[in-house]
């Protein structure tokens, strides 16, 4: 069975919307705040620009970026941008490095709560 490029574009958009909904639910469960879908969509585009491709990579980046307030600015804070723009890391390592960095922050600075 073949599908047209229009059908592929529609399926891609549907998958993206469903993913953002799932991610919004996850972030809300962690922060007790409901993220705006447009903010997550903007961060999603940023994630693609950084070379993130898998659900885990995109979700990891967006969760930390949103919790850091990155969606309220046009660029990411330095601690995120430095890692995500590092040409010597593959995508999986970028996300892992972000979480390692977040773990080293003084307690209470991170915006995500248990």
């Amino acid at each position, binding site marked *: 069975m073949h599908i047209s490029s229009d059908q592929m574009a529609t*399926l891609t958009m549907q998958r993206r919307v469903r993913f953002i909904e799932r991610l919004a639910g996850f972030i809300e469960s962690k922060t007790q705040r409901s993220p705006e879908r447009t903010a997550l969509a903007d961060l999603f585009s940023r994630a693609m620009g950084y070379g993130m491709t*898998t659900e885990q990579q995109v979700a990891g980046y967006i969760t930390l970026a949103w919790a850091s307030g990155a969606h309220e600015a046009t660029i990411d804070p330095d601690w995120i941008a430095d890692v995500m723009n590092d040409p010597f890391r*593959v995508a999986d*390592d970028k996300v892992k*490095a972000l979480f390692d960095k977040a*773990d080293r922050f003084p307690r209470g600075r991170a915006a995500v709560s248990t």
Partner: protein
Amino acid sequence: MSFFSDLWDEIVNIFSSAPATSPVVPCAGCGALTPEQAQQWFDHFKSRTDIPWNYPNDCCYNRAEVMDQEMSAAGVQAGKVWNYAPDISHPLRVDTPNDPDGFVEWGYHVAPTVPVMVNGVTTPMVLDPSIASGPVTPQQWKDMQSQPGSQLVLTDATPYYRAPDGRVTATPDAAQIARVFDQHRADRAANWAGR
């Protein structure tokens, strides 16, 4: 464990490793080799005379690269597995007849992996003719290097060299890769000279 490590673990459990946008999701097991095919690739590489298998002292990154390039060109979803010694005083160690001392020690080692389907389950298997006689699991491969404290990392085929902190080095072109093999053949000859 710390808060963000736990958060990352949750994300890995909830979200998949499939593309976040593409509706084309690879089916589990698609592209996996049979154990026989994995052994055929292993035997094929072992017979490649341009690869200096008898110089275990160095060259693993170059060997892994050329094997991955050939398998990727053939449509095999090859990857790499990296094993890092915990520190300089606790190196990886492998006994070998290919060094006058009878053993070699490394700070790290790398080899290609291929997905292999066994009893309906796909698992990565390591192809490393420099130290094994056939495909082995990553854990078996790690155990062969006699360093319980070492760290195993699986990646895709991309990194030519990957440092323990995740930084990678760009892949050189084919001519440079061939020169590395030439250099290591010369290094082997020098290593045995007068011994």
